[in-house]
């Protein structure tokens, strides 16, 4: 039994922790739409909402009663996320939630970033994947501490898993924590991890209309990175149109264009990280006076 929250056995596995946590994610269904016609409509619809006092049950007439809940479905996750955010804030940690499709170059961007910033900043990484510890091993090869979370059948990290990962990872005060989410442009949008910013990474080998195909993710992100720009001469990718689509779903989104392979444009990303960290450190002058970590 877990001492943090009392959760039991499950599917998600955090490296170095022998108990898992699946109770939020038993994604056993693969093709819900194939079944919806047999299951979707067989409810009685006895209580149409907004059509008169259908559920105004008079006391004594029935044993049934109404209970007002008025609670956000994601409230449990939001509580875990709020606890994580408090932890990050108390320790002056900049936490970034990196989200993208599989294969956008997240891990490569991360390894390059780590190699070029590790002498300047204290860094650590949480890697989310359904299976394997390959990505955490790629990160650890840079000499920075990394922890793998395998979500098993789950399609996203949640606030609860990240809270647990904190107990093993113990990121340093004033450090930068990268959380590489499961490659998926749908589900991670809804699950707050307590991060300061979501960063959406889109590679130019994908469609320029991804921001409007997956609007929730680009709406939830503060920064969009267009990666693999070294390949633009060989592609029909329309950068301006892509940025325009991103601004349609999120007028305030910032955009950086870079190539994690060639290094073109990557200094802008480092400047963005430094600036975001300085904002976090405004509450911790003791940590950031020099802008450097010991």
């Amino acid at each position, binding site marked *: 039994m877990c001492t943090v929250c009392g959760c039991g056995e499950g599917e998600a596995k955090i490296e170095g922790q022998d108990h898992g946590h699946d*109770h*939020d*994610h*038993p*994604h*056993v*269904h693969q093709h*819900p*739409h194939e*079944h*919806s016609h047999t*299951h*979707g409509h067989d*409810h*009685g*619809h*006895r*209580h*149409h*909402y*907004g059509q008169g006092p259908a*559920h105004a*049950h008079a006391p004594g007439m029935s*044993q*049934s*009663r*109404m*209970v*007002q*809940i*008025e*609670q*956000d*479905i*994601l*409230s*449990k*996750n939001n509580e875990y996320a709020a606890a994580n955010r408090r932890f990050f804030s108390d320790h002056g940690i900049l936490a970034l939630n990196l989200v993208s499709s599989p294969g956008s170059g997240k891990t490569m961007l991360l390894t390059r970033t780590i190699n070029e910033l590790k002498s300047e900043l204290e860094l650590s990484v949480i890697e989310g994947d359904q299976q394997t510890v390959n990505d955490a091993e790629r990160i650890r090869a840079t000499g920075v501490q990394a922890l793998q979370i395998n979500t098993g059948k*789950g*399609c*996203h990290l*949640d606030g609860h898993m990240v809270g647990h990962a904190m107990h093993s990872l113990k990121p340093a005060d004033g450090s930068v924590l990268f959380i590489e989410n499961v490659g*998926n442009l*749908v*589900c991670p*949008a*809804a*699950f707050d991890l307590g991060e300061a910013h979501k960063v959406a990474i889109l590679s130019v080998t994908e469609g320029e209309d991804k*921001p*409007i195909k997956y*609007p*929730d993710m680009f*709406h939830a992100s503060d920064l969009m990175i267009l990666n693999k720009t070294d390949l633009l001469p060989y592609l029909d990718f329309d950068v301006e149109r892509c940025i325009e*689509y991103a*601004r*349609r*779903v999120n*007028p305030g989104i910032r955009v950086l264009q870079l190539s994690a392979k060639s290094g073109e444009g990557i200094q802008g990303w480092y400047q963005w990280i430094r600036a975001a960290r300085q904002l976090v450190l405004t509450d911790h002058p003791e940590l950031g006076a020099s802008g450097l970590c010991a």
Partner: protein
Amino acid sequence: MHEVSLCESILQVMEQSAASQGYTRVNSVWLEIGQLSGVDLEAMRFGFEVVTRGSLADGASLEIVQIPGEAWCMKCAKTVPVKQRFDECPYCGSYQLQVTGGEELRVKELEVD
């Protein structure tokens, strides 16, 4: 895609409420789901049935109240209806919209025994 996770959360909310309010059976559940919340209603219904099987809400009817999408248009300076996040303002065609409604994901109320 994450509707089953959401249904697990709904079940948690119901179980906590049952413990504090002293009931053992949920007959009906009313949810408020915003049009812009990214939830597929059919997947939600399917997930709800699977997740609640054998629980206090086994067989409960699921009533979903859809909340329409709304945004503040900065050019028109008024609230306008939107169906998707990337919709333009239906009056002036601008994309300078701030979503103000339709992101709800709430358990509104339960009918219980």
